């Protein structure tokens, strides 16, 4: 393997890291938005928003990093995938706008407050559905001709993508729910505990469905997983998933506070790993590899020099921000 091919591997790692960070970080605050209208009292909704108000903007920045990283390291993938997802991405951006401004506007409004409650909820829900459907469309692959997307406006819409859309709603809701268990107390925490089991069962069901459907629909992915000796090397993914599931159930029953959130994130990371295994080494399924789509070595090197310092710095910011705003959030917190 040439040296620049290793460089591309590093870049694949960085973009993958940005995407999984986005899913984990924005995932739980989108999940709060999904659960938002079902909370019992208005003051509970205040608390839910206040648990993430200092960090949501930071969480969402990972989405820009994912997009910019794709553009910088894999411009071809950026130029194919974004047009293929034109309508869902437009919907996602609009949804994120309504949801994002709700953080500022809701606490400034009184008579129009319900508008921003709804805007926060629907924005979170639509953004999640669309991200999930985009993921499904991605797994199914895109039509490419002459270095450009050559399919239609609605190729992304399928039964499978509806399934992945629903799966992500359940997944983010689980992250949001377990985040609430960790960061709140009293009746709100109680409510989150109650939700944590059915949501978890739904997520496990969706993981199973997607895991069965994907290889059935795609021979290459089936071969990847079920041929010898791959099946041996890859077996830790499902085994670990099962182990985490059992640990989660125990954690909820023992009413642990931090573990459910950590284990939910673990489930996401494992699902992401499973997905990566299925699609490797393609960045535009079904047949454009990371090396075909990569920017040239001089671009990747220029970027890597900076990233080597900056990504650790960002991780330090993350830890510091969460450290500053640690602890249970009560009903008396806010700057508004």
């Amino acid at each position, binding site marked *: 393997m040439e040296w620049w091919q290793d460089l591309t591997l590093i870049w694949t790692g960085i973009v993958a890291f940005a995407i999984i960070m986005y899913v984990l970080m924005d995932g739980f605050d989108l999940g709060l938005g999904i659960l938002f209208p079902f909370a019992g009292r208005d003051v509970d909704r205040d608390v839910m928003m206040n648990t993430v108000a200092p960090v949501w903007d930071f969480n969402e920045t990972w989405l820009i990093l994912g997009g910019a990283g794709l553009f910088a390291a894999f411009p071809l993938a950026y130029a194919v*995938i974004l047009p293929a997802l034109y309508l869902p991405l437009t919907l996602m951006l609009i949804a994120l706008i309504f949801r*994002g401004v709700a953080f500022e506007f809701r606490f400034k409004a009184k008579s129009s407050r319900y508008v921003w409650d709804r805007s926060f909820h629907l924005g979170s829900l639509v953004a999640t559905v669309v991200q999930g459907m985009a993921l499904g469309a991605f797994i199914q692959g895109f039509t490419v001709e002459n270095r450009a997307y050559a399919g239609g406006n609605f190729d992304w819409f399928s039964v499978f993508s509806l399934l992945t859309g629903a799966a992500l709603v359940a997944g983010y809701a689980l992250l949001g729910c377990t985040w609430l268990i960790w960061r709140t107390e009293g009746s709100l925490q109680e409510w989150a505990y109650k939700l944590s089991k059915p949501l978890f069962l739904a997520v496990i069901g969706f993981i199973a469905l997607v895991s069965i459907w994907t290889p059935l629909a795609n021979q290459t992915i089936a071969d990847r997983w079920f041929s010898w000796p791959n099946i041996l090397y890859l077996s830790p993914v499902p085994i670990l998933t099962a182990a985490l599931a059992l640990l989660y159930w125990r954690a909820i029953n023992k009413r642990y506070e931090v573990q459910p959130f950590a284990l939910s994130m673990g489930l996401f990371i494992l699902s992401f790993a499973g997905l990566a295994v299925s699609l490797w080494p393609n960045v535009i399924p079904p047949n454009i590899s990371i090396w075909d789509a990569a920017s040239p070595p001089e671009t990747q090197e220029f970027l890597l020099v900076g990233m080597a310092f900056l990504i650790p710095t960002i991780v330090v910011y993350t830890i510091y921000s969460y450290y500053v*705003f640690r602890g249970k959030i009560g009903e*008396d917190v806010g700057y508004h």
Partner: protein
Amino acid sequence: MDIDPLMLSRIQFAFTISFHILFPAFTIGLANWIMVLEGLWLKTGRDVYRQLSEFWTKIFAISFGMGVVSGIVMSYQFGTNWSRWSDITGNVMGPLIQYEVVTAFFLEAAFLGILLFGRSKVPRGMHFFAACMVAIGTIISSFWILSSNSWLHTPAGFEIRDGRFFVTSWWEVVFNPSFPYRLAHMVTAAFLTTSFVIAGISAWYILKGRFAEYTRISFGMSLGLIAILAPLQILLGDLHGLKTMEVQPAKIAAMEGHWEGGAGAPLILFAWPDMEAEKNHYEIGIPFLSSLILTHELEGEVPGLKQFAPEDRPYVPIVFWTFRIMVGIGFLMLFVAVGFVFLSWRRRLYDSPWFHWICVAMTPAGFVAILAGWFTTEIGRQPWMVQGLLRTADGVTPSLTAGAALTSLGLFLVTYALIFTAGTYYILRLLQLGPQPHHSETTHQARQEAGRPKRPMSVPDERIEPAE
């Protein structure tokens, strides 16, 4: 004008970026203003600085939030609507935008949380540090975004292989010829914009006889900055113009409204440029002045539009008029600066209502000037997406249909109209309330000194709408 995906994408891009640019333009200056106030508070301990900072921080938070959400749209639109451009220039533009994200966006986002919510959670010094980081973040962000934008105007440090750009020198890419001028001009514009907002609102409070303690600080400080920046901006604009004549002569010809160009060209004050007839109607000009300004010689040679093939000319009327709007506002700003210096000298700054009314009227001046300048420079680059190398028509997404483009444009129009109306309404309500003395001493230190572990940092959910 055909309604095709290309035209719709151009309208959508122009619309979304024009909307977006208002917020960074405002928050760059505001972040620095808040940093100064926090610094003064830390140094003097005078409560008035803290209250003023908290007041402007609320307005900052709304503006910044709107800037963030509209900015995410920008970063995805490159791919959705301009995928050919993304593929062709991605090797060059991608890293610049990536560097903006990792050096600026994360810095701003991480410390914004502490700036807004952290006063009771971190020491005073750390809170001031967070204000500094947010302010520095806005400047770093300007650096990268203007570098990448400038590269499209004056590409450098690359070679073209198989129709795509490959970088030969990153130094030349980042510090491309027009970048220093554009960065200086834009950042100064942003500071002026914020200064005029602060000056205008302070003038309004003075006229209404409200918040005298606060307005003395904010009125004097913002006008002091205007007195320095308004003349500086005219100088920077002139330097930027001279550079543009060197690197984008067609744009200068359109800005000046010159068809023939040549020696001893007049400065055209008013005209109706006619692209069909290739001449101006109703032209009023000052002889030799354009040559004098652009070449510093009465008989200097200036470019004319006819030197360029018709298909390589920008759309002249818009460029011609937006340029005049920008320059006109620049001179009005200079007038305010002179008025401030004069009134300060006569010690009549706080009792000259006519001047306060002018300041109120000038509140939105910076925004209008920035939009006009942005139109001048971007439409002036047309028909090129990368000056001289890639036409806008060749950068659009091939698979994009008119239906999809129309859908997204319609959605963005409605969304931005709603968001902008709501945001403006809440900002106006905050302005009506004005700076508020806080209810209790609730900083980190105060809490520690008092030995109380937990205390509300402010009145939660302070509503700004009247009770009904």
